[in-house]
């Protein structure tokens, strides 16, 4: 008994979970069964600390085609087509080995999307690293960006947007969240549920090796710490060429109606894909591990069942269609093997050459894991460090340039130029040209917009209000290009949920997410939870990453964020009440503290509608939402983008009670910076604040007034490459 106890603990199960497994089986599990239970009962697969919270999220909507529980969510885009999308994390693998960790993160999210029969059409990514003056952060950034590019570029799916933040709490535990969107004919879409007793289970794609063994339980469901190098074998190795073939093969199989169901092999490999397919279909599955094509001949049954080798898919096929399926696999030169059969036993049975080596009720394995209530407690005060990097007596010009050069605000061109953003011929608005990416959808005669956001620092200041802001930021980005939200996906990146402070952050953030989605009327169609994101110095900033997809009728009218024409008027629209709380400037000054003003969701929603309608009517030259670094940075970004200056007076904000500093650098939801025809802006009820023209950014703000050349601002804003590729310590 003592030996068994050590083993289940090593695999991440608690003593009481082990006892529950014994009770459900009526005996002690053998090694194969224990390995499988440890994976499916891990946080990563069972969501045991988050599932109860997630029930708060609204998931229903008129346009929802597939909701949570499938490989990806999907919304109706018209003309019989759907847009599938999902975001997923690959944080711990990337912290251990950034290139392969990020690459396989992209590979995994692509498979989730084509598993439901959608052709991937776009990737976005949301990355978090420690401050760029650390060697580790530069190493992780470089590896992750190369890895994302390597996989996405090679497979021919454009990377159209994303965000990168640099904050000290991510130093040891970087975040790599990847989002994928796909398009499907609704008639060709397929669910993951196994069905049809006697149907054949076919494993397609790469052969199975020892890579990634225990990734979900050992790596994804525990804190990072000393000796993480020893975990490197738990990181998977990606092969985008194999994935490209598997992708085309699966889409051809689905297009020909040859599959009953399809599921990708991600975390926990065959164990989770077979278990979840059986559970969803209410059936049993028999698998013979001797039929699985292996890279190494001497693999044990438990290794075959838990391997996380990449680029593999599991399909259920009617017996009379197996030959046709294998022929399509042969055409695409991708592996395929009949490894099992659907049964009515309600059991997952693992065989080796016909001999039984493991047998578990599907219900116990997939749905039997206990769900835990959190024990949240609000931390007393600011629980993270904050080092000042900006002099207290910095002038407004110096402050603006410091903000523009701050890696979190600076242009991410260095990163996104390493990604193919144009393959597929859909990308109407590329990175940096507008607040949201815009992709044309000729299949439905319209277009979609997509944005991904989540400022962890602001969520750390107030998890509830900060998460609402993340949702509103996405909604505002979509409004800027004239899009109306259709659905939302999210990735909740948090610390150890068994500790009171991260538990409180998670609880508050999910409430904020639910509240914002309810009020905006945007359903949550899928998501992912990544917990135990901690390093030796404590938890990461609580980081809910929100990905939102919207629809617009005419992509030609999608507004850019750059000033277009001299003499255009500049105006501010929306319920913008800038505050220095949680702002980038407060961070640079080393003055971060808890607390954030609450956004007026109703008023922001109304402002989004006003902007959306104006954009669709073609009334505006540019639209940019006021975000990190406040109005001064938003003005600079629009000026740099257009290569034209501006003259602005912030008196109207002063009249709303803002100090000059709050007006310039304060942050908060609800602000839109517009340029265009003066009368058109007036008609929208926007507040005129200046005019486009010249080669300097001139801002009157009482005693903090300043003038900065557009070229000077641009040099600061484009400094990320030199900071990222700097070799010193």
């Amino acid at each position, binding site marked *: 008994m003592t030996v068994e106890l050590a083993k289940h603990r090593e695999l991440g199960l608690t003593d009481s979970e082990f006892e529950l497994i014994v009770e459900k089986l009526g005996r002690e599990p053998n090694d194969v069964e224990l390995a499988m239970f440890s994976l499916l009962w891990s946080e990563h697969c069972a969501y045991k600390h988050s599932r109860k919270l997630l029930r708060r999220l609204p998931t229903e909507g008129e346009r929802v085609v597939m909701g949570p529980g499938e490989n990806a969510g999907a919304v109706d885009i018209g003309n019989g087509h759907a847009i599938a999308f999902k975001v997923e994390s690959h944080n711990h693998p990337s912290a251990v080995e950034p290139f392969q960790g990020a690459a396989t993160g992209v590979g995994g999210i692509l498979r989730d999307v084509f598993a439901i029969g959608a052709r991937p059409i776009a990737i976005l990514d949301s990355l978090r690293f420690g401050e760029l003056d650390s060697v580790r952060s530069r190493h992780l950034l470089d590896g992750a960006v*190369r890895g994302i*590019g*390597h996989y996405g*570029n*090679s*497979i*021919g799916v454009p990377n159209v947007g994303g965000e990168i933040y640099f904050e000290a709490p991510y130093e040891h535990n970087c975040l790599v969240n990847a989002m994928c969107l796909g398009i499907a004919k609704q008639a060709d879409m397929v669910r993951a549920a196994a069905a049809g007793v006697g149907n054949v289970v076919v494993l397609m794609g790469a052969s199975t090796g020892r890579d990634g063994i225990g990734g979900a339980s050992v790596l994804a469901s525990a804190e990072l710490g000393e000796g993480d190098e020893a975990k490197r074998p738990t990181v998977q190795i990606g*092969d*985008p*060429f*194999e994935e*490209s*073939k598997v992708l*085309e093969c699966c889409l051809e199989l689905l297009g020909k109606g040859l599959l009953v169901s399809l599921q990708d092999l991600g975390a926990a490999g065959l164990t989770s894909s077979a278990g979840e397919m059986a559970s969803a279909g209410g059936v049993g599955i028999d698998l013979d591990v001797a039929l699985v094509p292996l890279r190494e001949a001497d693999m044990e049954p438990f290794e075959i069942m838990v391997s996380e080798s990449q680029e593999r898919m599991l399909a259920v096929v009617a017996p009379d269609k197996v030959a046709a399926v294998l022929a399509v696999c042969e055409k*695409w*030169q991708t592996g395929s093997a009949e490894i099992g059969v659907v049964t009515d036993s309600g059991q997952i049975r693992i065989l080796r050459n016909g001999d039984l080596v493991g047998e578990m009720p599907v219900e116990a394995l997939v749905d039997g894991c206990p769900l835990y209530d959190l024990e949240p407690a609000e931390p007393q005060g600011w629980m993270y460090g904050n080092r000042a990097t900006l002099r207290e007596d910095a002038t407004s010009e110096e402050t603006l340039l410091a903000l523009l050069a701050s890696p979190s605000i600076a242009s991410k061109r260095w990163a*996104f*130029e*390493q*990604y*193919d*953003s*144009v*393959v*597929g*011929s*859909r*990308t*109407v608005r*590329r990175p940096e040209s507008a607040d949201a990416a815009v992709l*044309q959808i000729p299949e439905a005669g319209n277009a979609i917009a997509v944005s991904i956001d989540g400022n962890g620092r602001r969520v750390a200041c107030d998890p509830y209000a900060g998460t609402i802001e993340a949702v509103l930021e996405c909604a505002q980005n979509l409004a800027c290009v004239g899009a109306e939200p259709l659905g939302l996906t999210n990735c909740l990146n948090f610390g150890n949920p068994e500790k009171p402070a991260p538990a409180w952050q998670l609880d508050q953030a999910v409430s904020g997410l639910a509240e914002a989605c309810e009020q905006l009327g945007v359903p949550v169609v899928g998501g992912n939870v990544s917990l135990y994101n901690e390093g030796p110095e404590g938890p990461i900033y609580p980081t809910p990453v929100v990905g939102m997809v919207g629809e617009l009728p005419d*992509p*030609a009218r999608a507004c850019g964020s750059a000033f277009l024409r001299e003499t255009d008027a500049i105006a501010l629209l929306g319920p913008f009440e800038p505050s220095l709380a949680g702002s980038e400037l407060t961070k640079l000054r080393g003055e971060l503290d808890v607390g954030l003003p609450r956004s007026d969701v109703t008023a922001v929603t109304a402002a989004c509608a006003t902007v959306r309608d104006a954009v669709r009517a073609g009334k505006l030259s540019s639209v940019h939402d006021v975000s990190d670094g406040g109005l001064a940075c938003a003005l600079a970004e629009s000026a740099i983008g257009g290569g034209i200056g501006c003259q602005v007076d912030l008196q109207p904000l002063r009249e709303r009670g803002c100090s000059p500093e709050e007006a310039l650098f304060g942050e908060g939801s609800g602000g839109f910076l517009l340029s265009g025809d003066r009368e058109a802006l007036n008609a929208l009820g926007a507040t005129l604040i200046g005019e486009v023209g010249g080669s300097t950014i001139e801002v009157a703000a009482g005693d903090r007034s300043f003038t900065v050349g557009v070229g000077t601002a641009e040099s600061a804003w484009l400094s990320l490459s030199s900071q990222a590729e700097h070799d010193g310590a």
Partner: protein
Amino acid sequence: MRWGVLQFPGSCDERDALAACERSGAEARLVWHEERDLAGIDAIVVPGGFSYGDYLRAGAIARFSPAMEAVGEFAASGGPVLGICNGFQVLCEAGLLPGALLLNESMRFTCRQLDLVEESSIDAFAPEKGGQSIKRHLSIPAKHGEGRYYAPDDVLDTLEENGRVAYRYAPGQNPNGSARDIAGVRNEAGNVVGLMPHPEHAVDPLTGSTDGLRVFEAVAAAGVAA
């Protein structure tokens, strides 16, 4: 006019190339890498992507495919062939075009909209102004990690003397360190053209530019009698 667009496992841009051929007013179909029969096809695109994963070396495996064998014969008989990005690499590997494409000077994959200068050798439509032909600039995206054009100096001199440099990066816009800013070259007969930037991604005003259509039109007109 009917284009054939090769499709290898690992190709990425074949559908975009197909659509671009159609936008240029021609018909087009995909040619699977195992096909040898090019009957009924008037011009060939060897598209971008990562054929066979670009294992070993970019384009090194694709050149041995049955379809490329057929393209070799097609080119020898004067048929127009356009190689884009990975397709350019394949044509160089196959010996249908001179030179080689090396890792970018930055050692990074780079995706960027840039200006190409259409050299007079390929520009059948150059406008006349005071008797001087004006070199047109085309706005076309480039995206590659191995696009630095290299050939020995004497080969480069010969290419220049014989008007076989088809496209150059506009001054200051060379994204990869290519010799003499060369973005694309032709074979001696003029019917085989390869370039690193992607004209198939510049055929729709919505996605940024339609200048790429000129590349398809120029190559379609480049066939020679055998």
